[in-house]
């Protein structure tokens, strides 16, 4: 079974975010970028499925700037077989991103297309199911584990109050969240091999968008808090403050 995983290059979660001068983007200088953490789970899921089957290849697909090649190489070092970069600047419009990715995926023979449940920059949580709609394929979201089974896969989904188990007929789409898959580390050999693996670059199709980011702002500062006291002796005062000052009890 061939699997394609869509991966996005995002600022590292430790990064301090500074708003750019013109106010509608972030300052890109000095930002460290990584593969979005949920996409790492998706890559791990794909690698294990292919290793388990002893057949098939994992393709990584990213829509992003030239520098997203680093993200793709990092994924190749983990064991993915090939990568495709659709060169362009993704915006907050997930619907535009979905169309860019779907256009490429429509010509792909992968039985399964995996996404992260969300990209941790814009936090939109939408691209996976949108691509599934565009491709007309069944889609399971928030998947924690995938098991192969002939013409279908069985997915466990994290839903309110428990786990839902669903079968998806292939070809299918799933968005992966934390669960069974602990991302592996790249071995030195993997990193060396990644340099020789195919990484195809193409211009992303131009897609118009009805969405405009007018400006970014910093969230309101939290007013400075206070230490009520030390140990159990501070408990009555804390409860009084919660009741009378904060009015939350």
């Amino acid at each position: 079974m061939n699997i394609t995983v869509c991966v996005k290059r995002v600022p590292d979660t430790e990064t301090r975010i500074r708003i750019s001068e013109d106010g509608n983007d972030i300052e890109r200088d000095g930002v460290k970028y990584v593969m979005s953490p949920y996409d790492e789970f998706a890559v791990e899921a794909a690698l294990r499925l292919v290793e388990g089957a002893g057949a098939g290849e994992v393709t990584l697909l990213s829509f992003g700037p030239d520098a997203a090649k680093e993200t793709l190489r990092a994924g190749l070092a983990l064991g993915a077989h090939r990568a495709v970069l659709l060169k362009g600047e993704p915006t907050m419009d997930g619907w535009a991103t979905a169309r860019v990715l779907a256009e490429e995926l429509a010509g792909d023979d992968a039985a399964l297309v995996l996404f992260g449940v969300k990209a941790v920059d814009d936090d939109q949580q939408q691209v996976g199911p949108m691509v599934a709609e565009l491709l007309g394929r069944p889609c399971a979201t928030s998947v924690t584990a995938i098991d192969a089974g002939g013409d279908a896969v069985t997915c466990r989904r994290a839903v309110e109050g428990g786990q839902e188990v669903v079968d998806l007929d292939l070809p299918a789409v799933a968005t992966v969240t934390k669960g069974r898959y602990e991302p592996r580390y790249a071995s030195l050999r993997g990193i060396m091999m990644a340099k020789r693996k195919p990484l195809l670059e193409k211009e992303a199709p131009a897609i118009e968008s009805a969405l405009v980011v007018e400006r970014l702002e910093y969230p309101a500062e939290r007013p400075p808090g206070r230490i009520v006291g030390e140990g159990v002796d501070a408990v009555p005062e804390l409860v009084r403050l919660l009741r009378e000052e904060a009015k939350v009890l």
Partner: protein
Amino acid sequence: MAGVLAVAETRNGRVGSVSGEVVSAARGLADSLGSQVDVAALAGPGSGELAATLSARGADRVLEIDTGEPGPASVAVNAAALAALTRERGYAAAVFAATGPGRDLAPRVAAKLASPLLTDVVAVEADGAGIVATRPVFAGKALARVRVGRAPVLLSVRPNVFAATESPRDAAVEVVAAGGGGDSGGYRVRGFEPSGGDALDVSEAEIVVSGGRGMKDPANWHILADLKDALGDTAALGASRAVVDAGWRPHAEQVGQTGKTVTPKLYFAMAISGAIQHLAGMRTSGVIVAVNRDADAPIFGVADYGIVGDVFEVAPKLAEAIRELRSSWQPTVDKAPQAPGAARRRAGKAEES
């Protein structure tokens, strides 16, 4: 003016409490557009009680979507029905809840309508040129003001942000046959494995009690569970990633950048250091309380109230003091001026009864 569609989530045939917030958000938007609010109730026909609750929140009309099938419809069928409805009635906007079911549903409706979708919206307004929404990005390190200049505008609202205000009217109820012909081709539900009890989801709870690595052992969680119970049935348990990675608690409870984002009225960080990725998930909470034995823990930088001390001593005392307070104040609570949370808690109860 084109109306606004509010999508009411239903669980076990009842309106989820977050639906009140969805209707309130839609009401605010419709008021600025000078139009009306239609609520799509996915539970199917026959619940007049549902209409009453929703009309109290500002619904002009309740559309009971009838899929013609017994039991709850699949997400594919619901998405097709909502897309068809939005197209036919020419809504200016459709408002969803940014909850598990809402996140599953909204992107599919958006794709069917070829519309952008703004998720986790915390503020929204209409002006002459379209609809402008505010949504957190980079895990809340910034807020983006985003304009969509073309109808319909699809958005999902973050739970616990839009107050479920009273705006009573007499909502007419209309049964609408589900159109759109969606089917669940290739998606077959095999089963459901409950994770024990019907615990409130941490992202929707009004009060969250989260525990970190300082709790030392999963066997100590009864201490936090007891504090949670003392705080009532709108409270839920949360956890730091360290705790989830150790397998002490399920990922569904993880708060933070790679877990859930929560906006409760009251957040307790118990023996949590306050790493940037944890703060990302909870810093927009109403009131933050931290208990940590390290006075320099970063969590105290965002906490409104902190106690420096041993969680194993402080937490049980806290539960005890809250129980005492609740029992002594209970008789006067109805008359006392209320915190917004108190009013909402009761409204939530009424909806569910």
